[in-house]
């Protein structure tokens, strides 16, 4: 079997080595494109004290909200966390640390982490609470703040299709943070809807090359919809 075959046999194996107090970067936007089965497996394994880096934190009974319910999350780095009652309760009680990060800065921090760029300047957050304590520098007459990159012990990612080497294709807006998370994990675990034979993906059309992927598993997905809006026409 090729050393490039990333396919593992179970969700347990997919998350082997994940231990208490680790940092986990998760793909997904709202409930769209979240690694829902990997999250359930973390819930099952009862790993505690986790730092989660994810744009949102799910809802009470789905996505990362499940890990809140079990008090497995110590800290969350996110841009928007508004749809979750248990989240509010834990934050208000001081049980949960929350580091609010602008959405674009969060995306860029993940990309930079994966790309070996330790820090970058951005105008986002200058003069706001986000900029407090951060270095300010002027370039071309405009003020920017210095933001540091993020890496995770694990990254958990949801993709649409993969070949056994871990080359990934995402679908529609389920792409979102997933390709960025994939680059930023020391161990990157990906769950997909379909594993296709090697050679069946067009090399020009691969969104995430397999070099970023350590473990791969095929799952079935509920794909819950948060705001089911239909046209009235």
């Amino acid at each position, binding site marked *: 079997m090729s050393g490039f075959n990333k396919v593992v046999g179970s969700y347990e194996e997919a998350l082997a080595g994940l231990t208490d107090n680790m940092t986990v970067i998760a793909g997904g936007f709202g409930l769209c494109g979240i690694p829902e089965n990997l999250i359930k497996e973390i819930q099952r394994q009862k790993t505690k004290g986790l730092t989660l880096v994810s744009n949102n934190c799910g809802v009470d009974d789905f996505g990362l909200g499940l890990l809140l319910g079990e008090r497995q999350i110590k800290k969350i780095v996110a841009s928007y966390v508004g749809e979750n009652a248990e989240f509010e309760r834990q934050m208000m009680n001081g049980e949960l640390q929350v580091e609010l990060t602008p959405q674009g800065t969060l*995306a860029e921090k993940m990309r930079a982490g994966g790309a070996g760029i330790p820090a970058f300047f951005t105008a986002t957050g200058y003069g706001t609470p*986000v900029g407090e304590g951060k270095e300010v520098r002027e370039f071309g007459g405009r003020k920017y703040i210095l933001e540091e990159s993020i890496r995770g012990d694990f990254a958990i990612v949801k993709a649409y299709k993969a070949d056994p080497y871990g080359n990934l294709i995402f679908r529609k807006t389920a792409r979102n943070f997933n390709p960025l998370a994939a680059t930023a994990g020391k161990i990157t675990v990906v769950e997909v809807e379909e594993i296709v034979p090697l050679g069946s993906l067009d090399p020009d059309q691969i969104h995430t090359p397999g070099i970023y992927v350590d473990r791969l598993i095929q799952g079935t997905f509920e794909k819950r919809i948060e705001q089911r809006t*239909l046209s009235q026409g």
Partner: protein
Amino acid sequence: MALSREQLAMRVAQELQDGYYVNLGIGIPTLVANYIPPGMDVMLQSENGLLGMGAFPTEESLDADLINAGKQTVTMVKGASLFDSAESFAMIRGGHVDLTVLGAFEVDVEGNIASYMIPGKLIKGMGGAMDLVAGADNIIVTMTHASKHGQSKLLKQCTLPLTGKGCIKKVLTDLAFIEIKDGKFYLLERAPGVSVEEIQALTDGELVISDDVPEMTFS
């Protein structure tokens, strides 16, 4: 009379140009899409990774993998493209989006905006708003001119934590269309039937009023 939500959207839509890439925030800004002038093509950017957002889907075309930044299910128009969140904010931060429309709690005469956080109330987060206000040259803030209790939202200095510093140049309220320049509010237009005096009374920051402030028109 104060503008309705629909009229706010209609007035913003008058600022559109053919070929504009536009990011519309949640709430009133979203309604702007309903009033794009006929014969004009505008592409909507949704910061979760979609350029060319279309209408809400039918039951048949509903797709859990296709949502907008408000997490609502949507569709794509012809010529749409999909990308990851870093690419999406590269567009925004790099100034490639022609117009951004978003709501706010307060703006002030220095172009500061506060829109995401009220101390003591639950903090939900800034989402993409800080990136949007820092990245765009051309921003229109839509909001009510004053609170329900009559407190002005157009201030000498914002009282709430800022979303962005010195980045707002245009504000459309239910009473007025205002430009921010040189540390002052310039009254460009009045809502139909609203007097300059009413606007002045509800504007905390310095308001510059020319001899003839036209009423907005809606065709």
